[in-house]
């Protein structure tokens, strides 16, 4: 055997003439970081830095195109004494809670309805998602025309059927305007809720329902004790997203009411926009936008806490 070792080992031990740099980049940790660094730097530059810069701006008195002047928490004090700011805070909470509740209830109802066997199920599911995929501003333009003060199609029917004459001013009356915004938000967000919950429903094993039925559970009891507990994690995730993006909504309000009438529908985002872009007060605007963060963090922390309590 020893006579053959020479010929055998020569191809096997062929020394790898690779530079050591190559070997270094092949290490798991090094390779990972080399991959991760460019996108991380990108996010730090365009999310992390603006975030910190926004905090800095909120501490400055800074009219547009002029140098800022550090004023500490002056902007936040000004907001605290500004009745419009509190109105905006209240609007945002009403809007978020009402729209999220409607989306949750409607989405769950739609998901339960669609969790039956019927023809064209996939096509109907695809159609149902349309409000969610069509650019929001464009579908909101359609809603603006549906709710138009003079030519609203809703009012045409209200008048024709003798329910109201003249029809209500859907976007001109403060409470009705808020109601309309909540409806349009629900229209847009409900499919997301429904389709996600439907996917959650489909993961629940039919055997559980069969077992419950054999044990004599009614449809309501099956929903209460089988469906709901198993669906809770999905409901939690969807609600978290919904709350975040309803709370910080901008597009719907900007297109439909611009915050009017008389600030009745201004949300944090639109008010901050008005103050920063309209009035040119970058510092004050940044402080209003930043005021979104604590309540939002509290809401999410509260939801997470509630979920944890449920698990134990």
């Amino acid at each position, binding site marked *: 055997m020893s006579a053959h070792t020479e010929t055998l080992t020569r191809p096997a031990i062929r020394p790898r003439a690779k530079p050591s740099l190559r070997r270094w980049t*092949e290490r*798991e*940790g090094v*390779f*990972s*970081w080399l*991959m*991760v660094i460019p*996108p*991380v730097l*990108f*996010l730090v530059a*365009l*999310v*992390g830095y*603006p*975030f910190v*810069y*926004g905090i800095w701006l909120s501490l400055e008195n800074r009219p547009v195109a002029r140098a800022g002047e550090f004023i500490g928490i002056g902007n936040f004090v000004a907001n605290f004494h500004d009745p419009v700011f509190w109105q905006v805070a209240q609007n945002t909470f009403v809007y978020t809670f009402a729209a999220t509740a409607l989306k949750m209830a*409607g989405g769950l109802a*739609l998901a339960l*309805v669609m969790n039956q066997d019927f023809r064209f199920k996939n096509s*109907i599911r*695809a*159609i*149902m*998602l*349309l*409000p969610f*995929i*069509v*650019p929001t*501003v464009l*579908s909101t*333009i*359609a*809603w603006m*025309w*549906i709710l138009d003060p003079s*030519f609203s*199609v809703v009012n045409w029917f209200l008048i024709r059927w003798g329910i109201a004459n003249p029809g209500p001013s859907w976007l001109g009356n403060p409470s009705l305007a808020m109601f309309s915004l909540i409806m349009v938000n629900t*229209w847009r*967000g409900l*499919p*997301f809720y429904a*389709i996600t919950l439907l*996917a959650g429903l489909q993961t629940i094993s*039919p055997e559980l329902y069969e077992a419950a039925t054999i044990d004599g559970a009614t449809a309501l009891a099956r929903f209460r004790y089988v469906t709901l507990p198993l669906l809770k994690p999905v409901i939690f995730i969807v609600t978290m*997203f919904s709350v*975040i*993006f309803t709370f*910080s909504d901008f597009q719907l309000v*900007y*297109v439909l009411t611009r915050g009017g009438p008389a600030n009745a529908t201004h949300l*944090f985002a639109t008010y901050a*926009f008005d103050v920063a*872009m309209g009035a040119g007060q*970058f510092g004050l605007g940044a402080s209003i*936008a930043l005021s*979104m963060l604590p309540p939002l963090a509290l809401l999410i922390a509260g939801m997470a806490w509630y979920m944890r309590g449920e698990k134990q």
Partner: protein
Amino acid sequence: MIVERRGWRVRGLKLWLPLGFFLVFTLFPFYWMAITSLKPNSELYSRKIMPLIVYHPTLEHFVNLLTETSFLTWTYNTMLVAVVSTGISLVFGVMLAYPLARMRFAGAALVSFAVAATYLVPQPLLFIPLADIINRLGLGDTLTSVILTYPTLLVPFCAWLLMGYFKSVPHELEDAARIDGATRLQTMFRVFLPLCIPGFISAGIFAFTLAQNEFLYALIFLTKTDVRTVPVGAIAELVRGDVFYWGQLMAAALLGSIPVAIIYSFFVEHYVAGLTSGGVKA
């Protein structure tokens, strides 16, 4: 499912009635968009005639939209921005998701936390500082401004979705490639990524629709006609003073929605898979 022997009445009550209600609620605004864009002004602004039907359909609003406004430029801008920012986001998304899903390295938990955090940062929190930054960089009124900023919304989302997908791929193929002497980069490009094409389609479609939908950054950064996107152009320029050109607005809304709807219809299943796997920015 449990076999339930019930008549068509029950089925109608439990299925078709609520389904019909939701379908009408969902589709009415689109129907209204479509018929409004086809109505002549005399029908549009008449309170007498039944509004749900078009009596004398006309394409005049579409013709005016395409000839009198910069709608085609806006469409081109929207497409360009959506495609480029989706591409950037997919590349960055892979660069984040591949190591996070397939490798162990110090600091992985920190990176994935950072991605989740940027995923949840609402856009209105950043637009004021970003407006200032974009101005200082001299990028105001350029498409670069939105091509740079859209991926900040899309990258975390793509990374998240792809991570979920990457984790579901078995390790054996990569191991085999590594044993055969492939470098990590070769393993990734030649072996791993080709297995993940459905994941890319899901993430890509999603990012594309999100990019088409974006409004706030476009509204702030793009103030000149020839760089605007469809949503901003429609809101800023089809409303002249206090006059609303409803026919044209609806034609614009319809034409602006169609490309997204068509692409979506081709990839519905991928879209739903993405939607239900990671949750989304809504």
